[in-house]
């Protein structure tokens, strides 16, 4: 099925958000909070970061004014959509002692459906990767499944590459190619809208619009091309799987370990990292509640078994992170675990740069 693109104005965009809420979706999109662009509930176009952009580099993120009113004129911020599909903190179940021993009750899953508004191509890839992890293995994560089902995805083709972006190297952007319901390309005051699903096409049909011309399509292509040409970072990704696994004792691991603080920021901001830990909380009524939270392979306890941690040194933990992202992930899930979003570079307090580390191990 091929769909026909249209062009909508700001009114069309407002109508899109309204239609989604009207259809019962909880609409989440980019908005400015605490000097960063984060993902949160949006009520309308006014909540979007109009006229903002970001400056990103290793260990550095700063919002800046643009000289236009662009709504999507920035790259990705500290949040990833993962926080809604795979929440940072989740109640799993509650156990209460009773005459029979104990009764365990699973926590109810929310019945809300999400619409993600302004999903970047790298993020669509990240969602597809987490779909593989949580839905396509021998075991399905019921919590992810409950949240993921029925998500409406409005993608945005990036018009500005961030200082730490390298999706072009990873073949994950900057143009969304699949996995969305609608994809927007921003022109000043207008948007080219391409449906990617029947649901998207049906929704588009309800918006004020005009048919896209060949010139509109060409303009959108040029936007993506320009963005691809202005990536802040580059990584030579071919052969990186073998490169890393053949160099598990490379001296560079010592070098990066000397800089790494083991803070785990990179895993927290990464849109594909999926690790979690469970903990039990006993409350005053005598009941126990089990919760699950994001965990990080950078913590010493992560690999603890009786007698000690399997990865006690920062060197081995950094190596776990990077080899997992760029190598073992392929063996496990048939895809890289990195989509080139650059968040781990930007949010690393000491600016460790995965692309630079790969170059160093390549001996460049």
């Amino acid at each position, binding site marked *: 099925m091929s769909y026909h693109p249209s062009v909508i104005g700001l009114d069309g965009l407002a109508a899109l958000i309204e239609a989604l809420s009207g259809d019962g979706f909880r609409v989440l999109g980019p908005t400015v909070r605490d000097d960063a662009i984060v993902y949160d509930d949006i009520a309308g176009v006014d909540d979007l970061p109009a006229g903002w952009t970001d400056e990103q580099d290793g260990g550095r993120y700063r919002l800046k004014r643009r000289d236009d009113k662009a709504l999507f004129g920035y790259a990705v911020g500290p949040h990833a959509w993962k926080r809604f599909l795979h929440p940072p903190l989740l109640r799993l179940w509650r*156990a209460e002692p009773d005459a*029979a*021993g104990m009764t365990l009750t699973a926590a109810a899953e929310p019945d809300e459906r999400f619409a993600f508004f302004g999903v970047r191509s790298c993020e669509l890839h990240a969602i597809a990767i987490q779909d593989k992890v949580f839905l396509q293995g021998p075991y399905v994560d019921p919590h992810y499944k409950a949240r993921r089902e029925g998500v409406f995805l409005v993608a945005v083709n990036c018009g500005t590459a961030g200082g730490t972006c390298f999706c072009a190297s990873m073949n994950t952007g900057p143009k969304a190619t699949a996995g969305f319901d609608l994809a927007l390309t921003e022109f000043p005051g207008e948007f080219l809208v391409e449906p990617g699903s029947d649901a998207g096409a049906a929704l588009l049909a309800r918006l004020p619009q005009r048919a896209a011309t060949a010139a509109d399509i060409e303009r959108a292509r040029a936007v993506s091309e320009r963005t691809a040409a202005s990536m802040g970072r580059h990584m030579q990704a071919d052969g990186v799987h073998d490169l890393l696994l053949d160099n598990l004792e490379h001296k560079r691991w010592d070098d990066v370990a000397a800089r790494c603080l083991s803070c785990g920021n990179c895993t927290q901001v990464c849109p594909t990292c*999926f690790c979690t830990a469970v903990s039990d909380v006993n409350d005053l009524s005598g009941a126990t509640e089990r919760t699950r939270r994001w*965990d990080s392979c950078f913590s010493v306890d992560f690999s603890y*078994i009786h007698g000690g941690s*399997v990865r006690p040194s920062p060197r081995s933990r950094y190596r776990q992170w990077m080899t997992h992202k760029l190598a073992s992930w392929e063996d496990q899930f048939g895809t890289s675990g990195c989509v080139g979003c650059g968040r781990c570079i930007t949010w690393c307090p000491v600016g460790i740069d995965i692309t630079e580390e790969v170059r160093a191990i390549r001996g460049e």
Partner: protein
Amino acid sequence: MVPVPFRIAKVIREIPGVYTWHLKSLDGKPFVYRPGQFNMVYQFGVGEIPVSISGDCREPDTLVHTIRAVGPVTNAMQQLRAGAVVGIRGPFGRPWPIDEVVGSDLIFVTSTIGLAPLRGLIHEVLHRREDFGKVVVCYGTRGIDDIMYEADLHRWRARFDMHVHLTVHSAPSGYRGRVGGVVAAIRAAQVDWPSAQAFVCRSETLTRQAVDTLAGLGVTKDRVWVTLERNMQCAIGLCGHCQIGPTFVCKDGPVYRYDQIEPLYSVREF
């Protein structure tokens, strides 16, 4: 993924600090599993840990776990008496490949608590005794007071169709059995080395030593089956804790054919 309540029907003190539970599900449902699989065992308000299933899989009405008290959870569990209720999630993991070794001589190599994950397999092998060649169990412990599953060992030693090579690290003078490392017990086994299949349940360092000894006798690494141990939280391949390189021990293991994971053993802190 919510634990199912089981009642402790019986507690057996195997050796100091090691106890075996016989568990019955509260709803009376049988617990179906294959030898080599494990459960996540949860003590109310304390915590949840991975534990191998050590019983006879032909008796699914009784779930058997043998646990060594080493830390907070296993120590708390040691205080539980018959009648207490614990939570069980499982069975998880890949079982021992019993059907793949039909027709061969079998040698089991383990020490102390390592017999727990092998015990169910040995039971099953004995149920299907005619399917296999010689059966030799090489079992080592620190001393003569650390020998687990004594009733089983007595029964096994009395059988004419299997050999038990027990070895201890030291014994009081006058002890009539073998003293030394498990390696000596392996060397004493009389099996057809060029076709025998070996099952090794030891720590990583000692697994490598056993594999080297076996290799010296002619057991190629594709005929050695081992288990790995890693931190586990979900047991279903989703929490990431049990990863070693490409493998998730909870779902791809804990049982592996040695030649398929040998490289993982040689990388430190991997």
